[in-house]
């Protein structure tokens, strides 16, 4: 072997090793290298202004407002007149020491927020004397402002981005603002705009040495877009006004477009509570209220048995499936017996005993027996209850029930529309129409949210189709073009079947249960409802006062508004829900309310004693069972 071999070999070996390592570093690892994500580059963000929110008539609902934070660099603080400083900031000396220590613990050489969101007057005083307090500074920031104390559930609020979100979504830096609920969350990307970025070269001492690559990677901030809601602020406020002292929701839709005119939940809160210095104690108070749940949107999330309004759907299915027609009649003997035992009897209060009942009066008088018979025919049409149940379920779901509606707010519930499999699982195939006869009258397993009921009403008003309800009308004054809100969704019921139903509903306000709140000159079409409800406390199932429900639309021909009103424990549909519906329709269609006596009566209707008694009763049972 030649003596020179060893060195030649080693030169080659090391050379190849080094080239391989360089390939690994510069070609393989270098591929993922981002030129601006580099310790030699410092990014400075330019925060855009968040978009404003208006109602459908251009009324400003959400604006921005300047707020001032006091910041501190602990290392630069020189001895100061603490008493004067504290009195300027309106904090105690102990609080001052606590805050100072917190900032020092964070990092003595870095700027951190000492006191958030100073009041405007305090800011003016402080600014004048700031030169006396070395190491303290004032930082401007933008916070939300709500000129009208209304619609908190729709608008939502914004939060500071926490560490977790900042890690997950690299758009955000910790401490920036992000929409948390409502439109603020749903339309976050529209409202927030686009942050501007400026890249700077820096050396290893963090000293800025000028723009990075002459700013070719820089971008300018794009302000957030303004949003116009479909909400009619006047109607919304009126609804909230009427709902004082009651729990529940009002949903008003425009049937011809699916636009949500009002989305009232009660109790609610003043959106201004979620900004400013009192934000954190307020939010603790609001989120922590487990009895009134002011942050729980009952209109969107509350699932209730729909009660009598559900009979309309059953009637429509009966007509479509051809098991009844307008002239089909049944007899009601104060109720409907679906089994042989005494208990297996559904009471009815239609007061038409001994006479045959046809569809029109069955709806206006809300005859349980009529719909129980209809329901039984639908389910048993195919001799096979599972198939019948599935057919029924498909029809019902075509009204947007039993699943998320797809509206543009981040909260909601599916509700529940059972099908054949559901009962097969529940009863191991041993069931028939009588087993779940309660579905005929909207009790039983069926659960819906108020907005779903409002949507059913809109579908009836449109005679067979609906637009997915939505809350945003325009973005930067451009009408939304999202096809999921602009294309109609058709139910499985033919158009011709709707007229007899609507006639029956018209009768409700002409001569039926809601005739006392009929409005002169406006053809209101609706259906009252009273939904039984139970609550499970421990092992006990206790019956609570009925929910009061009403769905309606008006005018009968060319409907402009469809409303669903849901009052928890409000009793009969005709006593509380009906007048509220009527007032809402009057307010929207005429712009004012002439029947002050009804309004007065509704404002005086305070259900809080009932709720209180309920809470106490539940507590007693809870402690008793324990």
């Amino acid at each position, binding site marked *: 072997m030649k003596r020179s071999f060893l060195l030649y070999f080693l*030169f080659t070996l*090391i*050379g190849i090793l080094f080239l391989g390592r360089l*390939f690994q570093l*510069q070609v393989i690892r*270098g591929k993922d290298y981002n030129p601006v994500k580099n*310790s030699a580059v410092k990014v400075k963000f330019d925060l855009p202004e968040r978009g404003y929110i208006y109602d459908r008539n251009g009324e400003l609902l959400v604006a921005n407002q300047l707020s001032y934070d006091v910041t501190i660099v602990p290392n630069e603080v020189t001895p100061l007149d603490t008493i004067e400083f504290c009195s300027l900031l309106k904090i105690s000396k102990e609080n001052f020491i606590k805050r100072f220590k917190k900032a020092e613990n964070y990092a003595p050489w870095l700027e951190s927020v000492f006191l958030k969101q100073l009041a405007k007057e305090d800011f003016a005083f402080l600014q004048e004397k700031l030169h006396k307090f070395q190491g303290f500074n004032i930082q401007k920031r933008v916070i939300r402002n709500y000129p009208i104390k209304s619609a908190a559930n729709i608008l939502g609020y914004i939060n500071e981005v926490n560490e977790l979100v900042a890690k997950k979504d690299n758009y955000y830096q910790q401490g920036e603002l992000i929409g948390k609920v409502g439109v603020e969350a749903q339309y976050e990307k529209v409202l927030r705009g686009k942050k501007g970025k400026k890249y700077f070269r820096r*050396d290893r001492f963090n000293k800025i*040495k000028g723009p990075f690559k002459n700013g070719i990677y820089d971008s300018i901030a794009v302000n957030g877009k303004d949003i116009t809601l479909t909400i009619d602020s006047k109607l919304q406020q009126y609804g909230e006004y009427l709902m004082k002292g009651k729990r529940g929701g009002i949903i008003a839709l425009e049937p011809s477009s699916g636009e949500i005119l009002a989305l009232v939940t009660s109790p609610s809160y003043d959106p201004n509570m979620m900004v400013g210095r009192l934000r954190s104690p307020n939010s603790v108070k609001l989120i922590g209220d487990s009895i009134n749940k002011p942050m729980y949107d009952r209109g969107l999330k509350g699932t209730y048995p729909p009660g009598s309004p559900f009979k309309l759907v059953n009637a429509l299915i009966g007509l479509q499936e051809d098991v009844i027609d307008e002239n089909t009649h049944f007899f009601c003997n104060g109720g409907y017996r679906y089994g042989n035992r005494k208990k297996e009897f559904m009471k009815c209060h239609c007061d038409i005993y001994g006479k045959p009942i046809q569809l029109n009066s069955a709806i206006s008088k809300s005859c349980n027996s009529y719909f129980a018979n209809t329901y039984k025919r639908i389910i048993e049409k195919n001799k096979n209850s599972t198939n019948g149940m599935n057919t029924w379920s498909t029809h019902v779901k075509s009204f947007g029930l039993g699943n998320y509606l797809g509206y543009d707010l981040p909260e909601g519930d599916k509700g529940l529309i059972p099908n054949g499999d559901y009962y097969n699982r529940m009863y191991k195939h041993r069931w028939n129409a009588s087993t779940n006869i309660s579905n005929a009258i909207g009790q039983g397993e069926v659960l819906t949210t108020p907005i779903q009921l409002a949507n059913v009403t809109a579908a009836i008003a449109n005679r067979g189709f609906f637009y997915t309800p939505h809350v945003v009308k325009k973005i930067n004054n451009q009408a939304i073009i999202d096809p999921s809100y602009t294309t109609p969704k058709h139910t499985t019921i033919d158009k011709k079947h709707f007229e007899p139903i609507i006639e029956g509903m018209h009768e409700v306000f002409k001569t039926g249960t809601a005739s006392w709140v009929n409005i002169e000159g406006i053809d209101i079409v609706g259906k009252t409802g009273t939904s039984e409800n139970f609550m499970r406390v421990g092992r006990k199932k206790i019956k609570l006062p009925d929910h009061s429900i009403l769905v309606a639309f008006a005018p009968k021909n060319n409907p402009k508004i469809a409303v669903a009103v849901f009052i928890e424990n409000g009793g009969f549909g005709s006593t509380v829900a009906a007048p509220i519906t009527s007032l809402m329709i009057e307010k929207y269609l005429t712009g004012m309310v002439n029947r002050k006596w009804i309004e007065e009566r509704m404002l005086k209707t305070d259900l809080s004693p009932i709720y209180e008694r309920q809470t106490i009763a539940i507590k007693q049972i809870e402690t008793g069972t324990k």
Partner: protein
Amino acid sequence: MRQEQNNIFFGIDWLLALFFTLLVGFGWINIYAASYTDETIQAFDFSSKYGKQLLWILFSIPLIILILFINAKFYQRFSSIFFILSLLTLIGLFLFGTEINGAKSWYRFGGISLQPSEFAKAFTALALAKLMSDRKYNLSILKNQLKAFIIIFLPAFLIALHDPGSAIIYLAFFFVLNREGLTLAYIIFGALSIVLFIATILVGVKVIISSLFIFITIYVIYNIYRNRRFLKFNWMKVVGIYLFSSLFIFSADYSYNNILKKHQRDRFEVILGKTSDTKQIGYNSDQSIQTISSGKFWGKGFLEGDKTQGNFVPAQDTDYIFSVVGEEWGFIGSSFVILLFMALLYRIIYRAEKHANKFGRIYGYGVASILFFHFIVNIGMVIGVLPTVGIPLPFFSYGGSSLWGFTLLLFIFIKLDAQKSYDW
């Protein structure tokens, strides 16, 4: 013949001169990038590092001419004296040396500082060549081996007192000894010691000693089984190796934990992955790796390296100059440098093997080995595969002594090479 001898450029290997020029030239471009600042008002500033380096480069031209002017025989004849003078300059540091960066290895003359250890390499190579080119010299004799070891380790020891990192380079001379007939056992023994040393640091004394025991036991059992010779087995040898290795492991562990300083241990631990601290201990290495990676395939371009321009890699103009190449010239540029060094090394060995007389050949091997060691240790450190040892990249790094030292080293070989066909 006379005429040819009068022409100082006669017979020189132009390829080696070209490699030298390319390395120095490209090196200077990168020193310019590393020390360039926007704040400089003048277009060219001689007080800056790139300005000074340019002066060093310019002044190396008369040095080269001087080296080429002198007859090759002169180097052979006076190599012992050069060597002794070189040792004296190293010793003189104790009296007249100036401390720079914690190492008292500089002489200061007015504005310029010189580092004698950079020149000592060339003179050690000359002395070694002179010793071993003697006709009566036979490397298989232990006494002769010892003579060579003394020439190598005397300057190494003197340098190690100030700057242990630079002394490592003298191990390179073992390649020269190997070429001249020293058994490979020395190098294998050295390599095995390094492996054992690293393994000891990595897994600890107990594990390594017991696994060594298991390994030897398996080896013994295997041999007994295979040869069926139990009694004839060389037990003394096996036990001896085991005891000797154990002793080595214990002393390696002891010297690692007690003789090496904290910062030196840290450098090992970063490379061995025992610590992942990139803020302090591993900062240099981490920054250097990031800087090189950021260059990608094509590099960011001359003066466009934001890490280089932000001075993120410490000593980026001297020991870490290769990171500048990596960032601004990318994979293309850095592989060009690697290939250039490989070509230079191949060429030196190729030319050295053509020498009819031993002196030129041995010296050539010395040059190649030293350059090779610098190349491994420096680039290995910059690309993060070897621990941090602060030695310069030949012809590339900023610094007059280093540039002149390597120029001297290489051009003496070029001169010897040019005259190799003459009668000595």
